[in-house]
């Protein structure tokens, strides 16, 4: 039945299913990440504007405008650095966490329910865990890219004096994951959208943003609300960011606590997400 063709191009043949399966087992998460990144490319401008436009606006308003007022009342509270330098790491980390609140909620709902995009790859050799992994890899790429852009603007404002200040790009990415992965595992359980994600934004992300030592040191707050900072990835990330950005001095054990907190939350979120993806897709 196969007629020999006389054309110069060789007949097109896919590799065997065995090869497909072996490749998918090894690289599956990256294959799915590729898909998510292609979709992100569609709103690439939003990502760039978020990475550049937001820091420009914030740094200008807070760091230049508000700073003149704040610094008039004595800059000592900010460890001897300018107000701009003080808030820059916090803004960088917060931006990553807010991105996490978007990227690990609506796209997950879209994958399982609205447009069911997870169920396409689910029928391919990919596993649910790899689909979850691909989503995470793609968002991590976005965190890195966006944080790098953000950091570049911060550096242009002269608000990143330390040699190791660039490490805050990695810290922002970690903070984004430590907030985002637990959120992803929650998003994967939602079967009907009743505005839960808007609630997360309003009642979790916003308070964390405001009470995580973002605009003023956490210890200026009364003890009654200081705990918000202690459980907040934004605070732990921000403190780490300040250490690398301008040599903010804190007890070494505290630095370790920040790191362990962020890594632990991210790891727990990842384990739960994987489990939830597998459970939901098998049902």
């Amino acid at each position: 039945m196969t007629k020999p063709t006389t054309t110069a191009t060789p007949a097109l043949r896919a590799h065997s299913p065995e090869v497909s399966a072996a490749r998918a087992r090894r690289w599956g998460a990256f294959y799915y990440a590729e898909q998510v990144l292609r979709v992100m490319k569609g709103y690439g401008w939003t990502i760039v504007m978020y990475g550049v436009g937001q820091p420009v606006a914030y740094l200008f308003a807070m760091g230049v405008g508000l700073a003149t007022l704040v610094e008039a009342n004595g800059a000592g509270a900010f460890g001897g650095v300018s107000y701009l330098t003080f808030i820059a790491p916090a803004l960088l980390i917060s931006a990553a966490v807010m991105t996490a609140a978007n990227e690990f909620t609506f796209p997950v709902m879209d994958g399982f329910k609205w447009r069911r995009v997870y169920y396409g790859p689910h029928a391919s050799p990919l596993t649910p865990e790899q689909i979850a992994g691909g989503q995470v890899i793609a968002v991590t790429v976005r965190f890195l890219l966006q944080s790098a852009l953000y950091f570049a603007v911060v550096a242009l404002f002269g608000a990143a004096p330390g040699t190791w200040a660039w490490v805050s790009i990695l810290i922002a990415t970690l903070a984004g994951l430590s907030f985002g992965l637990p959120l992803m595992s929650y998003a994967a359980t939602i079967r009907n959208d009743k505005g839960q994600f808007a609630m997360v934004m309003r009642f979790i992300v916003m308070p964390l943003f405001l009470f995580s030592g973002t605009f003023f040191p956490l210890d200026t707050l009364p003890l009654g609300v200081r705990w918000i900072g202690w459980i907040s990835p934004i605070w732990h990330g921000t403190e780490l960011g300040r250490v690398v950005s301008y040599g903010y001095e804190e007890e070494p054990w505290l630095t370790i606590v920040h790191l362990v907190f962020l890594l632990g939350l991210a790891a727990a979120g990842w384990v739960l997400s994987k489990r939830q993806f597998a459970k939901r897709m098998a049902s």
Partner: protein
Amino acid sequence: MVRVSELVSKESPVSSPSDAAPQYVITAENLTKRYGDVTAVDGISFRVPAGEAFGLLGPNGAGKSTTMKMIGGVSQRTSGSLSIMGLDPEQHGPEVRAHLGVVPQQDNLDEELKVRDNLLVYGRYFGLPMSYLRRKADELLEFAQLTDKANAKVDALSGGMKRRLTIARSLINEPRILLLDEPTTGLDPQARHILWDRLFRLKEQGVTLILTTHYMDEAEQLCDRLIVVDKGKIMAEGSPASLIRDYSTREVLELRFGSDRNASVGAELEGIGERLETLPDRVLIYAHDGEAALEQVTARGLRPVTSLVRRSSLEDVFLRLTGRSLVD
């Protein structure tokens, strides 16, 4: 026009351990799936040899899609055994799925990507290289008659086009087994015929087709053999022609007396044909010769509003087996 033979390779080996004559690509024994107290699939057994077009015919909720999901290696069975290309999908999920092309009941194309990109991305899930995928995507777009839509966004496509794109997508890895879950549900007649034509070409190429449908005409057109499923159980099995032969008469006389009279006229029709079926909107008389049966009806002085003699179909088989219609 692309030669279909180029789309699907013929000699891809069936990795069966034995050399036994009919090579079954799918073997299910006592396959059962329960969700809590509900038994969606209740101990069904069937075998599908390579190259067959095998159908699961039944109404909505019969357990067809659940069976397909188990074959597709995405849903775990409660009990029984299942083997696809000699592999247990629960032990070797990625390997089994690498053999398959899947057209799900609900399209799950990525609407944010362009038509052609949907094919490329999907091919990547099989680890296929871009050099292969670019050419393959163009071939499949032509096969699916979507070449001029290659750079359109998916949400700009009609329902029939989306369905064809989903089928094209399922062929990106040159599968030897294609699973089609209700492939033409929701399509207009013209779109369905285009789709059937494409599926028929694949069948000619020796691709094993497993399809579920609740359309009897679809089952008759495409299936070499089918199982009639109801409430998770197999009611009958065979080719469309043999099922009709075994469970129905050659012809059917359909009579309409008006909705208030259909039920009451039943007694007066006793003895005509081999079997009588009274439905709310019509009376069916199963007979070898429909015209002769109609003459007997008029000879008894009965005057139906309309009468129609037709060949028996799978719909009649289903009605006989379950006492219900396929499409509610």
